[in-house]
């Protein structure tokens, strides 16, 4: 008698959420097993990788990034370039400069940029806000209207603005919405319940449960990921079965391993390599913990993570 391995898929299943349209559309989630547990059941949709295009990308001074985007002047230029990158599944537009406490760029300018990108590329778009709850609510409302029909994911609705964001992004314009909370399974679930209360279809929700650069309290992010995924699969908790997207780029490029110059920290070696290492290590940890998609900045990180996923699936 031959050996038949015992498989253990869960009864709970992660929602499959489609982003984008046409043949470049992607699906995240949909599995009923732990990350990369292909021996328990087939994982139909491999984890996806997005490339960050920031509206302040012209300030990026890492040589690899400068070289890669050489000649690009607009977000659309950069997005076109990034779209061609092997391993890039979607483009994440990061509107850092909309922050009223920063450059405070107008909603109209941001919308125009997003529109230009949407016209230029075919791959799905994810929009990252500036983290100011009021500005984001306004930005997402206008942008979701302008990008109607593109099936864009807006990251993210928070406790403070979920009503406006949920209503405009999903109910009015049929796009997808992120639900952002800070490293707490209960807060994540509460926001999902409130979005549901707004009549937002759970299949239109992707979670940002908070992450951290490795070494910066990452154990909180790790345990939150673990618990949410187990609640979704093991306990079939429908309020936690949304796929998870980790905005790795936002966390890793601001820590001192990525920012300290070689003059200041000669013992640490090349700054760019450090930053890539942080990005790859964090993304790999997120994916093995349960994230269904990661957003990365550096082309080298994208390549490494693409290889990582391909070898495990």
């Amino acid at each position, binding site marked *: 008698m031959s050996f038949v391995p015992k498989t253990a898929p869960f009864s709970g299943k992660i929602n499959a959420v489609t982003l984008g349209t046409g043949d470049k559309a992607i699906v995240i989630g949909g599995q009923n097993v732990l990350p990369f547990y292909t021996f328990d059941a087939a994982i139909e949709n491999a984890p996806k990788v997005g490339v960050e295009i920031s509206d302040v990308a012209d300030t990026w001074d890492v040589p690899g990034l400068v070289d890669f985007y050489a000649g690009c002047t607009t977000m659309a230029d950069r997005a076109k370039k990034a779209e061609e990158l092997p391993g890039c599944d979607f483009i994440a537009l990061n509107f850092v400069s909309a922050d009223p406490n920063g450059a405070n760029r107008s909603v109209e300018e941001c919308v125009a940029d997003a529109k230009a990108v949407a016209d230029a590329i075919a791959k799905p778009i994810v929009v990252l806000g500036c983290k100011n709850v009021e500005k984001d609510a306004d930005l997402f409302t206008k942008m979701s209207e302008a990008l109607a029909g593109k099936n864009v994911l807006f990251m993210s609705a928070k*406790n403070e603005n979920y*009503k406006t964001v949920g209503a405009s992004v999903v109910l009015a314009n049929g796009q997808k919405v992120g639900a952002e909370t800070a490293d*707490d*399974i*209960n*807060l994540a*679930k*509460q926001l999902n*319940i*409130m979005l549901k*209360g707004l009549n937002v279809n759970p299949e239109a929700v992707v979670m940002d449960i908070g992450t951290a650069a490795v070494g910066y309290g990452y154990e909180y992010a790790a345990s939150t990921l673990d618990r949410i995924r187990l609640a979704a699969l093991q306990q079939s908790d429908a309020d936690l079965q949304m796929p998870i997207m980790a905005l790795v780029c936002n966390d890793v490029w601001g820590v001192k391993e990525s920012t300290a110059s070689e003059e200041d920290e000669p013992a640490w070696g090349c700054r760019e390599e450090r930053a890539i290492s942080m990005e790859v290590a964090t993304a790999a940890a997120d994916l093995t913990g349960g994230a269904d998609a990661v957003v990365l900045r550096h082309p080298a990180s994208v390549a490494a993570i693409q290889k990582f996923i391909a070898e495990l699936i």
Partner: protein
Amino acid sequence: MPKVIFQIEGATSVEITCQAGDNLLELARRANVAIDAPCSGNGSCGKCRVKLLEGELETIPSRHINDEEFETGWRLSCNCKVVGDCTVFVPDIASAYQSRMKTADLSSPQELAIFESCQNRLRESGIVFENSFRAVVVEMAEPTLDDTMPDNERLTWAVQEALDVANVKIPFGVMVKLASVLRENNFRICVKGELQGDTFLCMELSNPDDTTIVGCAIDIGTTTVTMVLTDLTTGKLLAKGSSGNGQIRFGADVINRIIQQGKDGGKKKLQDAIIKETLNPIIVNLCKTADISARSILRLCVAANTTMNHLFVGVDAEPVRMEPYIPSFFGWEDLTAGDLKLPANPLAPVLIAPNIGSYVGGDITAGALAAGLWDRDEMSLFIDLGTNGEIVFGNRDFMMSCACSAGPAFEGGDISCGMRATDGAVEAVTIDKHTMEPTLTIVGEPGQKPVGICGSGIIDVISELFRCGIINAKGLFVREGERVLRDTHNMGRFVLATAQESETGREISINEVDIDNFIRAKGAIFSAIDTMLSAVDMTVDMIDTVYVAGGIGSGINMKNSVNIGMLPDVELEKYQYIGNSSLTGAYAMVMSDAAAAKCAEVGANMTYLELSTHPGYMDAFVAACFLPHTDASLFPSSVQEM
């Protein structure tokens, strides 16, 4: 020196001279003018409002006083410095907390019935209501030139014969009055004292008609003090009374009090506030009502939380507040009324219901004794709702207890229009789900207009707002209507009474910040229950009875409390309100040696679960800070109708 006149609404004015720069609230305390200041003068609660009538005060602006009110003279007394002569008006509501606070002090027939049934339950559990205190009338032959036995031997012989004891102890305090009492009563007197094995300790001598011996049971709460006098022979209640805890002016919660007692001379101040200012007047009053002499009080029992116990006996309470939170004592024997200068027989023992942790005190052991969960096979949950929520779970085989900090929300603190349950407090609310019109029940005489909202009212409002779909599970307003208003920061509030409808001319409403504060308070209570149950691997359906105790309990609507996820979702019939169980327990201990011994046993057998160091507590707390709960399956009967 500046002179300040406090014009107190409904009372005589008080005048005091002071130094320029003195804080107005502290000055009021010095002048014994009662101004309710739950936050102890931090400027955070906004309850110490007074109105400047004449003169000037240097004032720090406060978010609790708007420009219009400031123009008309309203100030927070804690934010004011005296700069010269002035007259301030102290509104009735600022001092009402002390005189008309609604407390569970056995003044209503329902409370008395609850009290009786608790005593009966103890009897059924085999607690014999007997004590060792006796009053015996003895008659002695008068001495003559032939019968030369001294007074003390004469008394000893008589008592030995009357009570069949080997020894009789006559302490100094009794000895000094022996000669005169004997002669005034022609050698027929009543001896009151305690049987200690084969020895009788004489504690008091009186005329032969005065044979009443009295026990005094005291519940010292952080906010209120209640007391009963009982006949130690028959168990009959002789008198009962209550008042606000005089320590309130040193802060609303135990932490503020501990900080105050740590200051120079603070221990003495706080002990005086509780004994001299609070307990002594009540005891004197009750003795007058019962027509007994204070020296006939032969035994006292105090049930109080750990901090109150420390402040009562004048022992440093600082360790209660500091890690690792070890109090100076759990139980204490051999304390007498004389030690504490209480108006009672100086030899009278003062029993202290034992503490079992820094935040689970004698009020809980006494309460658990009274609830009787120690004698049942079924699992019971005992909840004492107050500034601190204390919880006991178990049965005859084991008992666990824990405490959580619910904050002052149940007593109206931390709530913009919150108040304690005195006249004018909204104590119950229903809301029409279609029109969103509220119907209020108000403490006080019929026709009383609302002044603010107390704990039970807040539970009702939030439950009703949630049921009617006016707020969402996070407590944010999601329905619009006439009653739902928003301020410039877009913060929503629900108007219970407009400025015209209220007693004070200020709108009475509950806003999103209030609701958030309250959700935290209820979350603290439920997560403590949840954590304790899971610590013993049990679930709410294993609970047979839920005993709810505490001052706010009498008015609390259990269905609404379940609806908002504060109390576990079990059949409403399982809920039993047991009133001031701490006082009931203290009464049993005074009356019965067996009950006192049982209380010590209950205390010793109770396991204390320290929640602050429990790994799952924070998580359970966040999960419970949602209406009704993040895990809705825990509250199947909670409904949102709209």
